[in-house]
Structure formats: C-alpha cells, structure tokens
C-alpha cells in the first residue's frame, strides 16, 4: 500500500508512523515509571512525540490529500503502517525503554535538524518548531544512559550494554530507505537515510566511547517495516490503541 504514495508522502508517513507507535509505547510507562519524576518526564516525551505524529499526519492531510489525522492513525491495518520494527517492540524493562528512547531521540534530532533546511516548507517549519522538544528528548536520553553506564553499578552497566545489544539491529532499521527517496534527495526535501544514519552513528559512537559501551559489530539492520512487514508486536498494539476510536469514531473529546 505504501508504494502507491508519492515519494514525499511515503517519507512523511514513515516519520509519522514511527512517532505515533513509539509515543504509544512510551505512554505505556505512564503511572509505572521507577520514580515519580522519571514517570512525568517519560510521559511528557510520549506526549511530545504524539504531537510530532499529529503534525506530520496534518501535513499529509493538507499537502498530500490524505484523510484526517485520526482516520489515518486509528483505522489502518497493520500492513498499511510504515513504521520500523524498533518502535513497535514492547517496552521490556526500563533499561531497554531508555536505550530505545535515547537511540530514537538521536535519530529524531539529526533528522529534524537537517529538515530545518528542507525545500518542502511545511516540513521545514515543523522541524524548526519542534527543535526545543527534540533537544530535550536527546538531553533526557543521553543523561540517563550516561548515568547508568558510568555512574551506576555493575548491574546497570551490564543492563545498558545488553539493551544496546538487543536494540542495535532494530535501531539500524530506523534508516531503512524508501524506494523513491532519490527523488526527494534531488529536490532537497531531505538529505537521504544514509546521511542521517552516518550522523546518528557518529553521535552514538561518541556516547559509547565516553561511557564504555560497546556497539555490536556483527549486526545487520532489520528492514521491512517501511514496506508494511511487521513483528508480531504491532497488531496487538494497534488493537489496543484503536480500541476507543473503534467503539465510537465520531466521539467528541
């Protein structure tokens, strides 16, 4: 289904879907965080990320002829989602959730930073608008990972390393390119996934160097999400996320 979209819609949709699904995962921590303050911070990040998804679905509606954001977000089936596998994985323990929050925030940060120069003005405007939020997400993730990998104890260090190990092939999947991306690169809409992945890698490498974490070497990216192939975790997530909307699609909030 995703291949039927224009190159631009294709790119916007995978950004929006990533944000929507990860926001849902993050929000599952609400009320369950390890301490009140951490709970509030994580929930705020979930809200911010959901806001990014809404903004992107709104651009899809206004510029690409998509249906209303709610309709696109809550009525599609699993195969129509172009999110990567990384965002749909269950939260696991707090170590994995933090590591994912960190790795995603770096990707989000480099992506939006480069999109501030996009030739597609609605997206450039959005990128400029969310600069502060994305910076805080990165600050949150970086500080947590540094704390647990440097200032923590042996258990926290081992857990962060294990979380990195588990996350890595999925994290690389965030940069699965769209088949029509070259057109967008030519039109200066965005710089292309390989460039973003390089920037992402150098930031993550620096943090790992400073914290003593080791990046898995024998690890190939897990692709498929952009084409609508998903892990067994997405369908139950959608079922839960869409539950209220399905009961009454016209409900006023």
């Amino acid at each position: 289904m995703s291949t039927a979209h224009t190159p631009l819609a294709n790119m916007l949709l995978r950004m929006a879907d990533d944000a929507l699904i990860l926001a849902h995962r993050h929000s599952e921590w609400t009320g369950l965080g390890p301490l009140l303050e951490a709970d509030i911070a994580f929930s705020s990040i979930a809200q911010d990320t959901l806001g990014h998804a809404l903004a992107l679905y709104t651009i899809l509606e206004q510029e690409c002829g998509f249906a209303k954001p709610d309709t696109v977000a809550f009525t599609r089936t699993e195969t129509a989602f172009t999110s990567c596998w990384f965002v749909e994985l269950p939260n696991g323990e707090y170590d994995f959730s933090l590591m994912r929050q960190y790795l995603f925030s770096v990707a989000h940060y480099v992506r939006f930073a480069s999109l501030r120069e996009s030739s597609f003005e609605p997206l450039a405007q959005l990128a400029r608008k969310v600069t502060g939020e994305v910076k805080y997400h990165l600050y949150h993730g970086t500080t947590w990972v540094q704390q647990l990998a440097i200032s923590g104890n042996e258990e926290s260090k081992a857990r962060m390393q294990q979380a990195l190990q588990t996350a890595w092939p999925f994290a690389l999947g965030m940069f699965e390119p769209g088949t029509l991306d070259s057109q967008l690169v030519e039109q200066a809409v965005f710089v292309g996934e390989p460039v973003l992945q390089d920037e992402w890698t150098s930031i993550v490498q620096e943090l790992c160097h400073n914290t003593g974490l080791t990046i898995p070497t024998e690890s190939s990216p897990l692709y498929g999400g952009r084409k609508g192939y998903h892990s067994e975790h997405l369908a139950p997530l959608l079922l839960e996320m869409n539950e209220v909307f399905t009961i009454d699609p016209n409900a006023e909030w």
Partner: protein
Amino acid sequence: MATIVSLDPRVSRWKLADEPARTDEKPSLDQFQTFEVFHQQKSGAHHVHVGSIHAPNAEMALVLAKEQYGRRGPSMNMWVVDTRHVTTLRAEDSDIFETTPEKTYRDVGAYMVRNKVEAYKKEQANNAPETPEQSQ
C-alpha cells in the same frame, strides 16, 4: 533476540499470585536524595524556589526538574541545589524575627518617601503644559 515482556499491566498482567507477600521492614531511606529546584520565568528574572525533586545527582535532577516544574508556563532557566547544601534555621528559632512594637521605624511602611513622591508628582502635573485636547 531476548524475550521482552511488557511491564504494562494491561498488556501482560502482573503475576501477583506468584510473588509472596513482603513482610520485611522498609529501609529508612529507600528513595534518592532531594534537590531544591529554582525556576526562572524569563531572562533577567529571579530564580524562584518552586519545590524539590528526587534524583541520584544534580545532572539527573536537572533533567527531571525540567519536566516536573518547567512544563507549564514560560520558562527560561532552572537551578537545582542539593538540599543538604541549604543552610537554614531551626523552626523553633523563628522567634528571632519578632521585634518589639515600638521599632516600627524599621518597617518598610515607616519610610516617608511616598509623601515626597506624591508631592513631586503633583508639582509636575501643575507645571505641565496643557495638552492639545484640553486646548481645543
């Protein structure tokens, strides 16, 4: 890939029955230490004490304070200070601020500057030239 189980009770219910009830005493300090948070609304404004926050160290306190105290309304900056670094009086010593009634000259209200200010304003108003509206 390691098996990842959701901690969300709606997704995978806690196996409460498997866990024996805890009867051991709670340790006296099972929380992180606290930091005092000072919030600045805009550039140049005072940092105002808004509350405290649990965190293992100052860096984490700042990350968490940002959302705890800075997510509503305008914010420019924040300070966090280890609560143990705040030097204060004992509550029962608050009586040192009590002063005898005849020393009202120490109160702010005892200064007579206001009379002078009002006299000055009156003088300025009398000397001011008539505005165009008044002359028409």
